[in-house]
């Protein structure tokens, strides 16, 4: 689904992503770990075609994403720090807006089913202004459920979710993978990461310092490797 080679990005001559290469096949999940400032969000934004890398190549769903970003955006869904939620619209209205913008079926039954999937059907007609950040994050995931995305990019998706929400999110991601979708997830949550990852990558100082199958790593191994590999990098 994603093939990236030698991605580099600098802001004001400061390298933020420095020669990152990675591959995420369909039906798998890559979890990106790394301290603050390691470049996780920038890498996700490059994969989402929101930021153009200074050099390197990126193919998403078989299409050159740097040459034709518009062509791959239909295959991409992103749940970033911002929830893409309009505060003065209800949960249902938010979904109607994004489904229509994405060119998807925005019939009320389908929207309610998506809200039911994220356990928000009881507040479907309430304005998002009254929602917690965790609820807004769920609206973002309902938006993903409505689309036809094959690549899901998530930035700190476990933030703001309670225990039940985390469990639900893990199930959602497993189902998305099961349907043939690819997931790239940036997080600080080791527990959340190990629950859904097929591969675990650690980013430090803009470089990919580890990329291993998750099955080879226990939680203790991961913590030890994380501490060793990120020691001295900016946090």
């Amino acid at each position, binding site marked *: 689904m994603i093939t990236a080679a030698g991605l580099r990005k600098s802001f004001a001559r400061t390298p933020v992503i420095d020669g990152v290469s990675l591959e995420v096949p369909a039906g798998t999940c890559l979890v990106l770990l790394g301290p603050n400032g390691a470049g996780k969000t920038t890498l996700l934004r490059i994969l989402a*075609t929101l930021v153009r890398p200074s050099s390197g190549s990126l193919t998403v769903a078989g299409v050159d994403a740097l040459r034709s970003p518009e062509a791959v955006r239909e295959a991409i869904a992103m749940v970033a720090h*911002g*929830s*893409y939620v309009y505060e003065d*619209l209800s949960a249902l209205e938010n979904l109607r807006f994004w489904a229509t*913008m994405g*060119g998807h079926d925005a019939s009320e039954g389908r929207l309610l089913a998506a809200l039911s999937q994220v356990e928000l059907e009881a507040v479907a007609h309430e304005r998002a202004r009254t929602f917690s950040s965790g609820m807004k994050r769920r609206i973002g995931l309902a938006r993903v459920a409505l689309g036809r995305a094959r690549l899901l990019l998530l930035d700190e998706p476990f933030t703001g979710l309670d225990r039940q929400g985390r469990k639900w999110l893990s199930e959602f991601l497993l189902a998305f993978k099961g349907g043939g979708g690819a997931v790239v997830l940036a997080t600080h949550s080791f527990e959340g990461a190990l629950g859904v990852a097929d591969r675990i990558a650690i980013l430090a100082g803009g470089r990919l310092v580890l990329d291993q199958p998750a099955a080879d790593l226990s939680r203790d191994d991961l913590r030890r490797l994380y501490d060793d590999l990120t020691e001295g990098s900016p946090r």
Partner: protein
Amino acid sequence: MTAYGRRAWIVLWKDLLTERRSKESLNALFFFSLLLLFLFQFALGPDRERLQAALPGLLWLGFVLAGLLGLGRVFIAERDNDCWEGLLLTPGDKSAIYLGKLLANFVLMTVVEVVLVGLFGVFYNVDLWGVLGPLAVVLFLGTVGLSAVGTLFAAMTAQVRARELLFPVLLLPVQVPVLLATVSATQIVLGGQPLAEAASWLKLLAGADVVYLVIGLLTFEFILDA
């Protein structure tokens, strides 16, 4: 309806619904317009001849100043919760977003203009009933021009820090052809002359509208992406 039309419609629907609920722009614009009327009244005094001569300019000065307040805010809601990023990621022709935003601005400005024209009539004791038809034509063409260029510059400046300063500085010079034509056409219409007398100004206005609309539709994608 085509996918393009549905996208433009949903942006229009979302902006108007948000405004109806928050009333952030409309409330501010009404009070601002009311204040302008008082200020003009104090500045010009009771001299009716002076008032008649200045009225078209005052009317459009009111619309432009209200427009600067209202149009500048049109993309602010997109910055909350990173909705701007969400719009960027939507597939399809991004000019549908521009069209939806432009129509929403057009509707909001028209509401403000209708109220402002009514208040002008009352405050300055001007009988507008006889010229309502021709005046509506001038207002329509002028508002399309103001909305088209205002929406484009609002998008351009939405992500910059000094947008409150940059927006009017960029917008006002570009609006000169629209303002020149609308003020002149309004003067002819309010003077009781037939609309045909203002034909050359209306042609200039329609031409400017088409140019601004085409530029907006063609360049919006690059502005959103920048």
